[in-house]
């Protein structure tokens, strides 16, 4: 069966520090991968998605970047965090072209920038 792992679960970082959140998927190959952000009490905002190694699509201009160094690994990064980067970050995967199956989400990372 397929599983998705996301870590860390909680992170408190000072303003100006770097960020690295990691997401890995097991049990499938060539998944589509996604990073979403959810501000407190708000909906989900798509940040990045990837349909293959090295292929990253950015949805919003921001202080963040994403990379996919391996088929089932997706990394969200920042060189210098801003207060506005605080939020709940969710990684998700889906089967390519099998859109009926929707997404499967990781357990999320709660990021607080102080």
């Amino acid at each position, binding site marked *: 069966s397929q599983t998705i792992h996301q870590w860390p679960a909680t992170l408190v970082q000072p303003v100006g520090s770097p960020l690295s959140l990691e997401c890995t998927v097991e049990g499938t190959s060539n998944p589509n991968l996604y990073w979403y952000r959810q501000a407190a009490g708000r909906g989900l905002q798509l940040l990045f*998605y990837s349909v293959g190694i090295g292929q990253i699509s950015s949805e919003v201009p921001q202080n963040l970047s994403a990379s996919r160094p391996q088929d089932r690994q997706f990394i969200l990064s920042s060189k210098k965090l801003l207060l506005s980067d605080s939020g*709940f970050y969710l990684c998700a995967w*889906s089967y390519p072209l099998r*859109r009926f199956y*929707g997404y*499967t989400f990781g*357990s999320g990372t*709660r990021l607080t920038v102080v």
Partner: protein
Amino acid sequence: AQTVTQSQPEMSVQEAETVTLSCTYDTSESDYYLFWYKQPPSRQMILVIRQEAYKQQNATENRFSVNFQKAAKSFSLKISDSQLGDAAMYFCAYRSAPGNEKLTFGTGTRLTIIP
């Protein structure tokens, strides 16, 4: 671009009663998929139910069912025999059948279950 609207930021229901959460969407496509996700206090996103646009029959999953009205672009979620564990944020989502791989979410409805 497709948009998804959930006009009820909050809803409440007595335990064991039935509640309906509303969702409308805007699209020019004829083939697509619709989803309801649940986000409990743990914040884990859980798929509740899904519907294929070309199927007229409404999807059901145990106590959860949908009322899919394609012409009206409406996709409501009905929860029967509400339980305390149903308390969560519920998100409606849209996905194109052709085209891009993205899922577009509504802003969510917070459901409270009253014991």
